[in-house]
């Protein structure tokens, strides 16, 4: 459909000069102001009329959000680092390949010039493509607030579709990741309606590594997209894989637990029942693939 009116509804574009100023402004206008980075989700919601926003607060040019850096402690990706920069980063490709792969599966090159990992997370779509990789790599969000900053694990960040634990005045300035465990391998399986550029009908991200601290000798992290009100961590399946000797049967059992944990919806991309079965199949496939490489 050709949209005859490309215009956005009226709002004021705000360019704060510091994080403190931005945080103050956002705290003063909790219902009317939104921070934004690339705007790739925001502008769509605003055009659709789903969001009524009076102030759009541009935080992407502030100090402290622009860099991607790798150190012995791990990787830090600033909020305004775009997805193409992440995909092109040698450190990301070497140590966090699932993140590059997941980012590459987002929309198109020109959209990824604007789209960011932190924006993808804060938009809190259950289908967010890069969220699974950020969860299995144990991402930590750095949250600035003029009243006091803090760090929160990504695993407990989401509270509902589009909803997070962020409070008025909070600004996520970066996400950081520890060095992945020794001997790790990962797999990202995204089921879309076509090979490239689509949203996920179902997304499965699996990371596994040898771990002497658990009975099975292997730990797995499993994140599922588009199958629950929030990006889902398949904790029961993770526990089973840590505790029961690994075999094809154990992997099938874990995949069934992942399927049982899902509460997907029917939508234009796929039915709930289809999604559940795809979670089982793709989870089994992802875990098997990872296990083959770490056993």
């Amino acid at each position, binding site marked *: *459909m050709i*949209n005859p009116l490309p215009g956005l509804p009226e709002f004021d574009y705000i360019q704060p000069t510091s994080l403190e100023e931005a945080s103050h402004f956002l705290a003063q206008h909790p219902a009317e102001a939104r921070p934004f980075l690339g705007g790739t989700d925001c502008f769509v919601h605003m055009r659709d009329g789903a969001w009524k926003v009076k102030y759009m607060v541009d935080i992407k040019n502030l100090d402290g959000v622009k860099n991607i850096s790798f150190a012995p402690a791990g990787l830090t990706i600033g909020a305004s680092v775009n997805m193409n920069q992440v995909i092109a980063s040698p450190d990301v490709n070497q140590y966090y390949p699932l993140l590059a792969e997941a980012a590459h599966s987002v929309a198109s*090159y020109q959209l990824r010039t604007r789209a960011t990992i932190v924006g993808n997370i804060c938009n809190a779509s259950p289908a967010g493509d890069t969220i699974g990789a950020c969860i299995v790599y144990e991402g930590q969000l750095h949250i600035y607030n003029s009243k006091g900053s803090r760090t929160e694990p990504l695993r407990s960040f989401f509270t509902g579709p589009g909803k997070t634990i962020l409070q008025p005045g909070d600004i996520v300035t970066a996400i950081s990741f520890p060095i992945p465990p020794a001997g790790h391998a990962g797999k990202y399986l995204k089921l879309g309606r076509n090979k490239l550029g689509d949203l996920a009908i179902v997304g499965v991200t699996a990371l596994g590594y040898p771990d002497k601290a658990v009975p099975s000798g292997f730990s797995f992290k499993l994140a599922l997209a588009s199958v629950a009100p929030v990006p889902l961590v398949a904790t029961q399946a993770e526990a089973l894989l840590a505790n029961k000797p690994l075999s094809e049967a154990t992997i099938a059992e874990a995949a069934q637990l992942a399927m049982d944990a899902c509460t997907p919806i029917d939508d234009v991309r796929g039915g709930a029942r289809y999604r559940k079965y795809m979670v089982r199949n793709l989870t089994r496939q992802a875990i098997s693939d990872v296990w083959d490489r770490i056993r």
Partner: protein
Amino acid sequence: MSFHRINVTVNGTTEQVDVPSNMTLLQMLREKLAVTGTKNGCAAGECGACTVLMNGEPVNSCMVLAAECNGAEIVTVEGLSHENKLDPIQEEMIKAGGVQCGFCTPGVLISARALLNRNPKPNEFEIRDALVGNLCRCTGYIRIIEAVKNAANRSA
């Protein structure tokens, strides 16, 4: 609603423009500067008809605020040719028959130019991957991909 005075370079010419907060880069190009080669299709960042280069990288201009473009360098399809000579990708698109109705063409050309700038020798997958965000309902893409291949071979 607030207005913003910005300085923006479009195809080599610097312009000072007053833009309202909610004006997109696409609207500014077409309606303020009368640079109408760039098209509006979906207005949602999906079809790529509005693709332009912003500081050397392709963006969907329907998804960028004009007010964000202060100090930016924008190149549209009108800026691809130099001294009355078409860009190689433009010539190859004509030769390959990669243009039918033409509505997607300005965006395709910009995405293809951006690809060749960052990767002068793309393989077919890389070409398809780079053009995922440019929908064409006429050609079936085959001739567009041929054109990009031929343009890449020319710069050998």
